[in-house]
């Protein structure tokens, strides 16, 4: 799975720490999601989508293979 979290966060002008505070997770968690090292749970993915006001599928995409 890949995502456009880093780009969306940059558009908003948020630091990882600021986004982490909004999502109530650690900064390292935001980093791990942005770098594709960790796929968030469905509740966290919904929280991310809500934070950016976008549908989940426009942030997270399933990669082929």
């Amino acid at each position: 799975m890949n995502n456009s979290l880093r780009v969306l966060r940059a558009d908003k002008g948020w630091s990882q720490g600021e986004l982490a505070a909004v999502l109530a997770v650690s900064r390292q968690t935001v980093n791990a999601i942005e770098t594709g090292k960790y796929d968030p749970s469905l509740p966290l993915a919904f929280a991310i989508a809500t934070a950016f006001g976008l549908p989940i599928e426009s942030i997270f995409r399933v990669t082929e293979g």
Partner: protein
Amino acid sequence: MERESPRWSASTIFFLGTFGTESRAGRLYQNRTLLTLIAVVVVPVLARLLSMPEPLVSALRVVAPALGFALIGVWWVRYLHGVDEFERRLHWEALSVAYAVTIFAAVTLGALAREFQWNISPTTLILIEPLRAAVLWHKSKQYR
């Protein structure tokens, strides 16, 4: 775009066994554990200073650490419930590896001790803690 450190502090992982005090769960765990450890040391010392009967002081020396570490176990479970999902996942992975290695080591050392009449203290099982911390540190680097 700013670049923030994706890492958790290695010293925190090795000395506290957690991801530190940035989270509320981390702060609570550290404070509760510190107070519990102080009580484990202070209670038996206080009993001796107050000239309590020796059997009572003796009993406290056994019971205080047992109760203290049981409490720390409770604080640990609460900490795990309090951290976010990614941190919890890393902790579980570290615990799984440490558990498997400890079972293997306990069985192997037990067999060796029986065969060669070695006197191995059960307290050596506390070595699971630095092992868990090392695995946690390694796992946290993998997900960097």
